[in-house]
């Protein structure tokens, strides 16, 4: 059974003034596949994700998703098409509870106008009730049921990362972009995060683009890996292939890992 290409990135380049952050990156993600992008800091990994999610328009190149070129599309439109993401530096909303935070991902689907809030039309109540239930489903799924009504920013870092994932899932995406989901977590938390991602992946019809620094996360989860350095792709392959690639080892993994 052949899996279709769900996100196709061709010759993506991003220049910031004179600085070339991403240099001619090409890659793709298949349906039901987890791919990884690794590389040292500043290699352009997050920039690739930012282009796919619409935060920066590429300077050149194209991103094909569901038959459309995402270049130049606004982030919210890209989200409506089915791409959601988390951030390397957690971006939560001040003072909002976990539940409200996850609920905001459903806001765009609201069928009512501002005027209807005045007369408290039944549509308003019905919709709010529905998205509350759906949001709770995701909150339960990431294991934060007990904290649904806590202020998101007051929770520990590991939980905040899971809130971001719940919020991304609430977009009900087909493609999930995870930018360093394990950053700042201790060993146990990382293992829990890996398990969570694995479980979500097997339960839901998802493709995932994952950026991470930790080898155990990448090797464990990814089916295919792209290696970036200074904006250029210097290697790609299965985890085993990438681990053995001398160019990659030299640039990034270092002598020790090849002996691991």
């Amino acid at each position, binding site marked *: 059974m052949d899996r279709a290409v769900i996100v196709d990135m061709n010759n993506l380049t991003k220049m910031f003034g004179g600085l070339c952050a991403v240099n001619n990156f090409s890659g793709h993600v298949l349906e039901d596949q987890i791919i990884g992008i690794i590389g040292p800091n500043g290699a352009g990994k997050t920039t690739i994700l930012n282009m796919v999610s619409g935060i920066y328009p590429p300077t050149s190149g194209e991103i094909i998703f569901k038959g459309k070129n995402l270049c130049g599309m*606004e*982030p919210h439109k890209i989200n409506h098409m089915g791409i959601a993401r988390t951030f390397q530096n957690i971006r*939560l*909303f001040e003072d909002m509870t976990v539940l409200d935070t996850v609920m905001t991902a459903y806001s765009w689907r609201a069928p009512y106008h501002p005027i209807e809030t005045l007369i408290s039309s039944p549509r308003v109540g019905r919709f709010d009730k529905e998205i509350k239930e759906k949001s709770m489903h995701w909150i339960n799924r990431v294991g934060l049921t007990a904290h649904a009504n806590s202020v998101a920013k007051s929770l520990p870092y590991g939980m905040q990362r899971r809130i971001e994932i719940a919020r991304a899932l609430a977009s009900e995406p087909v493609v999930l972009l995870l930018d360093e989901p394990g950053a700042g977590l201790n060993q146990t938390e990382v293992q829990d995060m890996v398990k969570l991602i694995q479980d979500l992946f097997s339960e839901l019809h998802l493709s995932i683009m994952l950026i991470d620094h930790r080898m155990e996360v990448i090797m464990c989860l990814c089916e295919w890996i792209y290696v970036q350095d200074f904006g250029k792709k210097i290697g790609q392959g299965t985890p085993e292939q990438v681990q053995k690639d001398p160019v990659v080892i030299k640039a990034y993994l270092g002598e020790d890992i090849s002996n691991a």
Partner: protein
Amino acid sequence: MSFILTVALSIAAYSIAVLGTFMLTGMNGLFSLGQAAFMGLGAYVSAIMVVNYHLPFAVAILIAIVVAMGLAVLVGFATLRIRQDFFALATFGFGQAVTGLMTEMVNVTGGAMGFSNIPRLTTPTIAFISLAVAIVFVWGFRRSHFGKDSLAIRSNELAAKVEGIDVFKHKLTVFVLSAAFAAYAGALMAFHTRYVEPAMYGWIASVTWIIIVFFGGRDSLTGTVLGSIILLAAPEALRFTTAWRTLVYCVLILVIINLRPRGLFGTWELSLKPVINLFRPKKHQEVQ
């Protein structure tokens, strides 16, 4: 009309404009220094419609609101994508442009001398009911997804965008709504004070509303309404001149922001839950 009733009417009408600023600046963090221009628009358009064209009061107000909202759409398109400080600057410029036009178009508006002999058509009933409706609207707005989206956009616009919120459309909606509030308040006031002039609608008025919102607490609707009543009533009681009154507002808000940035009322809201619970059958209460 007794003095107290006159003052209360003014406060009620003014508070409607403040509620507009609550939505725009408090909830959404959009710093507009030209809000008062919409109030002026509402005042002048409705006054001109009634005095010069003899239209009925309600129709004149409706026209005024529509004009204000239309202009808000244009201005919003021009300014809402700009970064915050420049948005403040652009709206300041907008306010100057509008008051400039009001002063220039002497034949239509009476220019700097103002527009007078406006009939007294605003009654206390109209004003108080309007305020009540405005409060209910903002309260409902805030409780709905619009409220959550506002806080999301205010806190972290980028995160709001990637989770599907059309930030520009949301900001435009809020901008137009608050313009409508300001315009309506302007119309009510015009037919109460019976005289309007461009100087009443400058940036100082806009900033005063922002001060009132932050005084009460930008996260508290009750706080803003109460703060509005307190700040607008006190000078009447104490008989301040305009400059002293404005100066006191400034000092108050500087104190509040330094010592209690959340505002006098913080995030406290008047909750109707205890009252509602009184009327609920005992069974429901136990289940809760």
